[in-house]
């Protein structure tokens, strides 16, 4: 049991997808202008990623097998695109506001490098089904946590007296850099 806990802690804090592995940066920068958009995007990505890593493990383990290994990336992308399409329809139905706020970034989850990266990392690390599910869920949780924190900071920075040329995404980039600097404090926490 502690081993599963370690996976979770490691994916959320120690090697966080966005801050340490520097994956999934475009929605991280694009959607974090407003807090509820960030939370919406985070939840959508968590749903897609958990489902995606679970499905990709099944595909990889039972359908492809060793000889068809070259199909891994292709099949993963098809699976993920299907799940994202399904999520988009679900969100459009359940909360049109969130759908409107997320706008273009919802279909863009497909191109989010974390969403494809994590299943591939699963395959590389030879996780079993439970581990890859946890790894996917932990990675997405880390992504959501960091994005929500970042959205909180950016909403506060709207009112800050930032020098003209740094306003907007420039100061966001600097903040993301400093956040990644502080996440290095976690290094070594989990072997």
């Amino acid at each position, binding site marked *: 049991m502690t081993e599963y806990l370690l996976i979770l802690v490691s994916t959320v804090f120690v090697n966080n997808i966005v801050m340490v592995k520097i994956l999934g940066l475009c929605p991280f920068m694009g959607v974090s202008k407003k807090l509820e*958009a960030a939370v919406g995007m985070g939840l959508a990505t968590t749903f897609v990623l958990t489902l995606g890593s679970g499905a990709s493990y099944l*595909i990889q383990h039972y*359908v*492809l097998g060793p000889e*068809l290994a*070259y*199909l891994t990336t*292709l*099949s993963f992308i*098809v*699976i993920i*695109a*299907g799940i994202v*399409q*399904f999520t988009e*329809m*679900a969100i*459009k*139905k359940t909360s*049109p506001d969130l759908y*409107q*706020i*997320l*706008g273009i970034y919802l279909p863009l989850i497909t191109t989010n490098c974390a969403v494809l990266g994590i299943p591939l990392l699963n395959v590389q690390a030879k996780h079993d089904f439970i581990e890859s599910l946890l790894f996917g869920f932990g990675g997405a949780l880390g992504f959501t946590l960091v994005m929500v924190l970042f959205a909180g900071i950016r909403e506060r920075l709207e009112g800050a*007296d930032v020098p003209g040329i740094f306003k907007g995404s420039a100061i966001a980039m600097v903040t993301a850099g400093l956040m990644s600097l502080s996440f290095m404090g976690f290094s070594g926490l989990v072997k």
Partner: protein
Amino acid sequence: MISALLVMIGISLLLGAVLGYSAIKFKVEGNPLVEKIDAVLPQTQCGQCGYPGCMPYAEAIAKGEADINLCPPGGEEGIRKLAELLGVDFKPFGEGAGPRAKAVAFIDENTCIGCTLCLQACPVDAIVGAAKQMHTIIASECTGCELCLAPCPVDCISMQTIPQHIGNWKWQYPTHSIVQVAAR
């Protein structure tokens, strides 16, 4: 090779089925966006945005044809609301297209000939009068859209800016706040 093709076809068929089913179950009608945009616009129906009224401009924005900074009566605040609603960046007015001080139309009773042309032009029926009778404008209802200026054959309508009195006075933004000027 064949098995690879079979696998890919199998996966896509499975996904096609799931998506087809969910497309039906999650059917969503209409686009509620247009009403939301129209709610933000100031309803002066003045046409300064190049569209014959606020609803047509809202539809144009929803369809993405129109820009969000074409509405002077809405002011900067209007653009910010539209930008927030559509999730796009705030875009200031083009030069010269900015909002003007709020004004109300006023008919000079000496020269009005009672031709009712301005009556038909007013989008909010703020002008009282009849053929061959004296016309006058209800100041409280006039939105300042200046649509009645053009049709008037004798040019007896002029725009009077609303003066500042105790009722509509507003607190100014504190100027001596953050230390910007050279230390006094």
